């Protein structure tokens, strides 16, 4: 079987509107978490820190030349990243519309980003109905499909915070099973009153910039963004620039609690273990882990334990949530781009805001930028419902 290679990437996040801009911020340790960006209406905008894409929805629409009604911010960010990825991979129009090109995208908020509009439409406003067809998750990928007249397999996945890792995994499996020759895979989520209030009600939003894996962590910051990868078979890549190979993936369920991980971290452990086995690698082969590392009390402790159980002595690891916040359905795709940059540029980016290891665990993430020899990177994503997925990217 041909290897599956990454031939194109696109990303938009709080630290930049392209892969290059994101890379510069990662190298320079420049966070995107701020108070008061103001692109989404909520009483917490400006009070709590968020990692916002500092471009208004109207500007995004204009920049992307989208004139159709009913297109949400979630979809616009997805299209932005999608466009960069397909241009980067040099996909032709004929390839985009071919029936062996698949699109697999993830989102957890979809059209629910329009919290106020949805409330109005479900409570008597029957006049302003521009968005009534876009309330679901699939609206994002159905727009991209119809925008580019795609005819291959199109799918949308939502497994909460591991959604886009599952989209990447699913895209690889479509290729391996012969249901697609090339896939465009990723995820998107925009900041919304809906999710902000959900996480705030759970009391896991920090009032300061998040500090993943730190003893005194206070919770997560929400962020927004989108990222897509173009995956092609080795035989089709020709003389294209190849960023990395997707060499393994694993999906498992923690089967413990709707919104927190089991103390032993069964789900995370099994996801990582199954990714290694799928990649035919041993723990010692992994040079770096892009951890889920949200900065919550529960995640960072459980993830640390699960990594220790599997790896014994940990390889270099870091969470990039201190740059982008937690972008939910986009997180795994954005972090896939960063993991691939680790490989392509042979360097590591810091886990921001870390000061003191967690008592009783004592693991210490990478805290400063450094060049490093990197062959294999594992990227972790764990979501509500115990949905855990790990991906492994390797030097091609």
């Amino acid at each position, binding site marked *: 079987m041909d290897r599956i290679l990454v031939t194109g990437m696109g990303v938009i996040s709080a630290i930049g509107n392209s892969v290059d801009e994101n890379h510069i911020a990662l190298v320079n340790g420049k966070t995107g978490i701020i108070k008061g960006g103001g692109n989404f209406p909520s009483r917490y905008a400006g009070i709590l820190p968020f990692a916002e894409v500092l471009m208004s929805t109207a500007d995004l629409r204009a920049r992307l030349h989208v004139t159709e009604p009913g297109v949400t911010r979630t979809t616009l960010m997805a299209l932005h990243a999608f466009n960069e990825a397909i241009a980067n991979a040099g996909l032709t129009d004929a390839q985009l519309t071919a029936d062996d090109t698949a699109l697999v995208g993830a989102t957890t908020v979809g059209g629910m980003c329009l919290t106020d509009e949805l409330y109005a439409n*479900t409570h008597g406003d029957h006049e302003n109905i521009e968005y009534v067809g876009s309330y679901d998750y699939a609206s994002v990928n159905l727009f991209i*499909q*119809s925008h580019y007249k795609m005819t291959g397999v199109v799918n949308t996945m939502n497994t909460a915070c591991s959604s886009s890792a599952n989209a990447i995994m699913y895209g690889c499996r479509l290729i391996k*099973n012969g249901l697609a020759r090339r896939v465009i895979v990723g995820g998107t989520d925009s900041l919304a009153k*809906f999710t902000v209030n959900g996480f705030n009600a759970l009391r896991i939003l920090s009032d300061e910039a998040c500090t993943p894996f730190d003893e005194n962590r206070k919770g997560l910051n929400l962020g927004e963004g989108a990222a897509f990868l173009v995956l092609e078979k080795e035989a089709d890549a020709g003389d294209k620039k190849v960023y990395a190979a997707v060499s393994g993936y694993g999906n498992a369920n923690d*089967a413990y609690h709707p*919104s927190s991980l089991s103390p032993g971290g069964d789900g995370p452990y099994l996801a990582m273990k199954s990714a290694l086995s799928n990649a035919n690698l041993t723990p010692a082969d992994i040079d770096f882990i892009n951890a889920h590392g949200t900065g919550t009390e529960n995640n960072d402790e459980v993830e640390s334990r699960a990594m220790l159980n599997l790896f014994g002595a940990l390889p270099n690891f870091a969470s990039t949530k201190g740059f982008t916040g937690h972008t939910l359905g986009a997180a795994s795709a954005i972090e896939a781009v960063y993991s691939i940059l680790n490989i392509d540029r042979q360097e590591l980016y810091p886990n921001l805001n870390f000061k003191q290891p967690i008592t009783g665990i004592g693991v210490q993430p990478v805290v400063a930028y450094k060049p490093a020899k990197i062959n294999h990177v594992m990227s972790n994503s764990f979501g509500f419902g115990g*949905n855990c997925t790990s991906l492994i990217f390797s030097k091609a």
Partner: protein
Amino acid sequence: MMFYINKTNCISPQQTFGDIDIEQLHASVDNKLKVLEPPYPAFTANAIRRMSKSTRMGCGAALPLLADSTQPDGIIIGTQVSGMEENGKFLNQIIEYDEDMLTPGNFVQGTPNTISSQIALISNNKNYNITHVHRGLAFENAVIDTAMLLNESPQSTYLLGGVDEICANNHTLDTLADWFKKEDCANNDLYKSNTNGSLSGEGAAMFYVSNNKTNALAQLKAITTIHNTDVDVVKEHIRNFLLQNLPQGEKIDLLLSGENGDKRALHYYTFCEQLLDSGTPVARFKHLCGEYPTASSFALWLACNFVSGQATVPEHMLKKAAKVSALKNILIYNTHKTAQHSCMLVSIP
């Protein structure tokens, strides 16, 4: 790629759970076909109280299939927006309490992967677990995922399901978007209607599947999905699907048609009928289950029961008088909102 369906359960607006009786048609109320929820002996009162309706019926249909079976190697669910009723409650809290002092229960229950994860939690299943949410092809993508899993791991077994619920918010939004009828329409008059929209429906259909032919109810022989509104493209695609997948010398013995009383969708179904031998019996199912994004999972449940002889095709489903006998191959064709289409070929094992 294909698989066998070894067991199936369905909670629907008709008597499909436990003792099956689809001869007697349960009527729609206020243009809605709501599920007949059975008692759920497997859950404690507290667990039921916390569950959204879609989680309740999803788990309710799934758990009996798992009771005396090997632990499945994965749980694969298709749903458009299960949990939206819980989402709606949280949305109302946000606006009505002005984003202050909210309780998170509805938010957590509102994420659509709650069904697959609750089944995993209750049955202590730590294997592959996924939720496909691709609107009218959410269940079909779950089927494709399952077929790939069985291709990758032929000895495994999987739990596959399709679930969606009627809730105030999706009913209102889809009515505003012109997908549900605005005038009163009873389900036994659905196909006489010549207006936009259908009746609102819901349900949960679960399938325990494997490559094991022994005692199987049915074989899912092939599946295809289409994103297009051009009727000629759709017709050509279905023609190719049949050419590629129907064994030579065999014919479609029954078309299970997703016709739904929406005048904008009718010609897709008519064209599909024209692709088959004249005289091929056509049975419609949306007056039983209503229109919802994963209604094709209800059709697959019907097809399993028909090919296995566990149920016969009731008169009220037949589009025109026809003799339905010796069912070997059933074609399910469905379109959701005319932009998403699917075909499934279901055969005797």
